[in-house]
């Protein structure tokens, strides 16, 4: 079958374009924002969009555009670390479980089932009860919620690949368990794991926003889209735009990442296309 060209795939290209724009905005915000995202100006509070503030201002007169731009960094950072954490832990558990088999497999899978009972919000509630809320709690809680999906995928791949000739050959040539797992099985399990990581990223962005909204994640005054929506809720009738822009930023980001994930799945895994 002829290899499909990624850029001719509409979903993938659209997703890539939106995601690239998000990364550019986040990178730009580290060097330049139209105004200081933390600078307050009581005289300019709750301004509608226009003039010196294209997205308007919040209840402390801070520039919403600059805060939305900086919020992108929070989303990307939390998303990347949470997905990395979930993937790292999950793949480790899955590889171990699938390769070892027997009672260890059974025990680890029951642990994974148990972890599935803790969506990010529940873990965050639990962690925040004993540690201070903040970005780290967000990252860990969201990461933990991703562990089951990665563990099951990795385990499935190991079970599928364990009996394949190239793995048996590697073992026959004297390759140790670790070497066989890391050099032969893991690289061949990568495509579905990459797709899972891409589709987990938008989920992480949504979860970060929800946790910040509940006061369990990123803390003020640092800008996070979820936190901005929490603040905007009290001023819905005075300045509805305050709620529209951060919410729109989340929706657009998640849309872009979802499209990118769908496109990547089509390209990497023709069975589901």
């Amino acid at each position: 079958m002829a290899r499909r060209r990624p850029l001719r795939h509409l979903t993938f290209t659209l997703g890539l374009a939106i995601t690239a724009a998000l990364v550019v905005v986040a990178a730009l915000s580290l060097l330049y924002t139209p105004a200081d995202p933390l600078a307050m100006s009581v005289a300019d509070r709750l301004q509608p969009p226009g003039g010196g503030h294209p997205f308007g201002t919040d209840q402390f007169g801070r520039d919403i555009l600059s805060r939305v731009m900086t919020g992108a960094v929070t989303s990307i950072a939390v998303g990347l670390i949470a997905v990395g954490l979930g993937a790292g832990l999950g793949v480790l558990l899955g590889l171990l479980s699938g390769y070892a088999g027997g009672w260890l497999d059974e025990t680890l899978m029951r642990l994974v089932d148990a972890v599935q009972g803790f969506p990010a919000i529940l873990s965050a509630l639990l962690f925040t009860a004993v540690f201070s809320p903040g970005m780290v709690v967000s990252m860990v809680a969201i990461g933990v919620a991703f562990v089951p999906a990665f563990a099951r995928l990795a385990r499935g791949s190991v079970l599928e690949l364990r009996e394949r000739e190239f793995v048996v050959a590697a073992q026959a040539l004297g390759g140790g368990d670790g070497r066989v797992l890391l050099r032969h099985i893991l690289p061949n399990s990568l495509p579905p794991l990459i797709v899972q990581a891409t589709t987990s990223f938008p989920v992480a962005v949504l979860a970060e926003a929800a946790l910040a909204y509940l006061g369990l994640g990123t803390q003020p005054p640092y800008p996070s889209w979820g936190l901005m929506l929490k603040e905007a809720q009290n001023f819905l009738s005075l300045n509805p735009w305050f709620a529209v822009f951060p919410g729109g930023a989340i929706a657009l980001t998640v849309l872009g990442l979802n499209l990118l994930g769908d496109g990547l799945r089509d390209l990497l895994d023709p069975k589901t296309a």
Partner: protein
Amino acid sequence: MRRYVARRVAALAATLLFVSALVFVVVRVLPGDPAAIIMGTEGSPEALARLRESMGLNQPLTVQYAQWVGGALRGDLGRSIQYDVPVGGLIVSRLPVTLPLALLAALFMVAAALPLGIYAATHHRRGGDYLAMIVSQVGISVPQFWSGLLLILLFSVHLGWVSSGGFEGWSSGLAPALRSLLLPAIALGLFQAAVLVRATRSAVLDVLREDYVRTARAKGLSERRVINVHTFRNALIPVVTVAGIQLGQLMAGAIVLESVFALPGLGRLALGAISARDLPVVQGVTLFVASSIVLINFAVDLAYGMLDPRIRYE
């Protein structure tokens, strides 16, 4: 089937044990001294010692865990520090908000997603399919609490049809109670409906490609009969799985929507307990919600085994 159920029940027991262990480790073991967290900076050393004694923290961790799990199995989740009442009772008192909210959202999810998913699949690669896919793609991208805020903005701030939040309780009548739950249930169900539309569409598309569907069409059955009798029933298996898993997600999502609409449910109970450093309540609520999600997943597994005999023999 009996062996399959027995195996699943044994796995469920082990999973629930892990759930309780995870909650226990985070609340009792990781912080070092939970009593110090509850007391904060204001407690005297004597008060701290008394609290430790009353919480049983002077005993070995294994004994503490066994006592806590034993109590939980009897419905005793300890006493709330903030309200000085049993945690179990507090949880039960909040269920009439969280449970109907999740169920109403589930109802909305199924009612919106199944027809749309079937429509999209039966109009594959035509205008209606593309439109349904765009709608579901947007639905998946919009955070639930933002849809909640937008619904408040439209129906409460602009149109003034409903209040922006709060819950008067079921004693004030069915209609006012349902009215307070309607917007949050829509906001909660919208996102999940978008996920389910995609799952339904792809399940129906898979079945439509089967030989028996072609046979049904070839022998002259009406398209309605082909879809209703031959396609939909077989497509139900993956749809039930996705919908079941989403029921668990709805429980977690309800926590967020309760905050948006100021509903006195389990989520608000837990959030209030965090600010009040009421660890037994946080511990109880998380154990309850996590166990409920595990139980829902178990029920989905069983349903899956019943619907598809192949699963039982794996």
